[in-house]
């Protein structure tokens, strides 16, 4: 396929009906380090692997609070993610100012998707190079959404994006039927187990390179601190999802 003939800008279709620029933007998401999310009836947990550009540098944060009831995990171009994060925060603040209540999650994801789509239909713009996992809780329930550079968005029970996310998705396919009734602790352990499947052989999970954020119906978004992360990682080896089945 002579891609280079049809991939100069967003306003050119390929004969197969593809917009290559948008597809290339989705590649940028796949290059980002893994982040995943999973939800139960009461909680949503976001786990991500933080990258360190060099030994001298700090670790790049991947999870951002949008409002008390909503947070995002990002994969892809961090600078683009910052723009979307600022937009989402501003929208939530305005909504709260006008209606004195939390912005419905699906509605905000829709707004982000609209914004993203707009960038795919112009000769002078490029799509956002970042995928978001949006975790949120509103009167409609507990939500986990994924947004794409293409402007599509999907709701999930659990999802992983970024590099080597297929390994985490495979783990989810085996165990997601347990998530609905899981406790918060079980959910966190499932999330960390899934991330463990996606790391390189010589890498190891520790409290520095892993980020876990939790949301609950009566719990504002918080990150687990270093000590809590150490405790959960220590429990990983002993964690056996089979025992959860026996409980039910």
């Amino acid at each position: 396929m002579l891609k280079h003939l049809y991939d100069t800008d967003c306003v050119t279709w390929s004969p197969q009906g593809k917009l290559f620029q948008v597809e290339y933007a989705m590649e940028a998401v796949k290059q980002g380090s893994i982040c995943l999310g999973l939800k139960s009836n009461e909680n949503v947990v976001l786990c991500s692997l933080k990258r360190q550009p060099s030994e001298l540098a700090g670790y790049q944060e991947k999870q951002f609070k949008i409002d008390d009831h909503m947070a995002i995990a990002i994969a892809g171009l961090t600078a683009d993610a910052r723009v979307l994060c600022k937009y989402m925060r501003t929208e939530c603040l305005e909504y709260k100012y006008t209606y004195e209540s939390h912005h419905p999650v699906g509605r905000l994801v829709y707004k982000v998707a609209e914004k993203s789509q707009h960038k795919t239909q112009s000769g002078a713009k490029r799509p956002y190079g970042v995928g978001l996992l949006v975790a949120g809780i509103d009167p409609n329930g507990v939500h986990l959404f994924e947004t794409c550079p293409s402007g599509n968005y999907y709701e999930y029970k659990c999802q992983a994006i970024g590099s080597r996310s297929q390994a985490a998705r495979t783990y989810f396919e085996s165990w997601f039927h347990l998530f609905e009734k899981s406790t918060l602790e079980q959910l966190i352990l499932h999330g960390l187990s899934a991330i463990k499947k996606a790391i390189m052989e010589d890498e190891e999970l520790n409290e520095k390179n892993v980020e876990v954020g939790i949301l609950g119906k009566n719990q504002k978004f918080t990150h687990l601190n270093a000590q809590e992360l150490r405790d959960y990682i220590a429990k990983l080896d002993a964690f056996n999802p089979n025992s959860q089945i026996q409980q039910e």
Partner: protein
Amino acid sequence: MYIPMNEMLKHFKQDVPTMANITHKSEQWSPYHDNSGTVLAVGIPGAVIVAGDTRLSNGYNIMSRDATKLSQLTDKCVLATAGQYADFIALRKFLQQRLQLYEFQNEVQASTETVAHLLSRELYSRRFFPYYTFNLLAGLDENNHGFVYGYDAIGSYDKMTYGVQGSGQELVVAVLDNQLKGYNKINKTIPQTREEILDIILDCFSCAAERDIHTGDNVEILIITSAGTERLIKPLRKD
């Protein structure tokens, strides 16, 4: 000579107002209403105590016996407002939104000094259609020492150790001058403990409720320390 009746009457017009010639100038609509009530705040090392009555009035009527005049803006500071309730709500909403934005941008909550200055600038931004609010901003400074910032309607402010605003202001502030500073006292004993100061505050509100018709029902007290916020409600006269 024929003179028309209205011409005749002009010569007999009375200067003295009688029922026939009194006209009432109708009161022009005002955007301002005073919902009254009293608020006060006292700062001591390690804590700040803010109190406000919960009565909302409109003229001689009571609109609510259960309306709060206090609003916690950050972990360390509380806004207490007397004046027009609608303007209090609007001001509080603005500050809550602006402070959440500050927290997103700076990754830390605003200090009490910062909030104080922000409030002053917001009030002055409405210099030519002011918020009808008389504010006290009470909070802990960087050393966890309690202070009170007092404001006028257009944002002039000053850092103090205690302050009073509202319809009972004149009644209460003189008592606090005497009790907390020892002004005009013969035996100058200054209260040191939180419990002593709480007692004085409750007494002040009881006194204000006795004489000021707009103060009463309940007094709501917030005590801010570095450990957190404590809330008390005590009853006051309901008449």
